[in-house]
């Protein structure tokens, strides 16, 4: 891998979150996607980070356990 490529990989790592959140400006976004097209390591980095965020987001937020809710309403005198 050339030094230039390595530098681009470092730059990608710094911009990864902005890219995944759709907040990277168009020119940078195009540069980054051009790099991704021929750098399998960076593509894996992007794909696995995106997947990890989706896995965390897909964990449905737990409802309040019934006993915790009962005790809360008692403490707040709402029951």
């Amino acid at each position, binding site marked *: 891998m050339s030094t230039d490529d390595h530098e681009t990989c*470092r730059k990608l*790592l*710094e911009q*990864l*979150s*902005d890219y995944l959140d759709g907040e990277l400006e168009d020119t940078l976004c195009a540069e980054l996607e051009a790099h991704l097209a021929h750098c399998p*390591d960076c*593509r*894996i*980095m992007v*794909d*696995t*980070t*995106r*997947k*990890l*965020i*989706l*896995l*965390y*987001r*897909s*964990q449905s*937020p*737990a*409802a*309040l356990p019934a006993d*915790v*809710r009962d*005790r*809360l*309403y008692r*403490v*707040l005198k*709402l029951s």
Partner: protein
Amino acid sequence: MSDNGTFATEAELLDGLRAGDAAAYRRLVELNSANVYNVALKLLGDEQEAEDVLQETFLNAFEAIDRFEGRSQLSTWLYRIAYNASLMRLRKRKQMTTFSLDQPHGPDDDPLLESQHLVDWSTLPDDRLLNAEARAEMDRAIAELPETLRSAFVLRDIQGLSGAETAEILGITVQAVKNRLHRARLKLRDRLSDYFAERARGLHVTA
């Protein structure tokens, strides 16, 4: 406010709270208690402490409602109270241990780690990656993040709050939220990639 105790808008709910309407208090708790509890649970990793923070948050909010100026949303205000209560508990814990469990990988201003784990496990379907054991591993990974990164990740990526809301709750700038979130994601990816790559290999073998 309508007769059956539902409050169509935040302003109506706030009017009800300021007027001491019991239905408004109940509504505030119904709308926000699960979120407050879940954030405290992810920040503290302890059910009893999360329940204590939940109760403390609403007791404090009920007391302070007259001083709530309405500049932020009620939910943001409640998150902020819960975050501060959780932070106090984390600091107390830190004082009680000789080394910090929050920072097993060194200070959170470490330079970005370049990952060595470049196995592509991203194409496996969620239901094959996510069993109870994997969820527990993901929770452990969050618990191991430094507090500053954990709070940004929990509020943004798990609770799905905006950068601006998260900044308000944490008392930092939107840019600081972005920086912390970025570092949290990279650390989590690094921490969990071996685990998921191993699962991916196992699933391929048994498939």
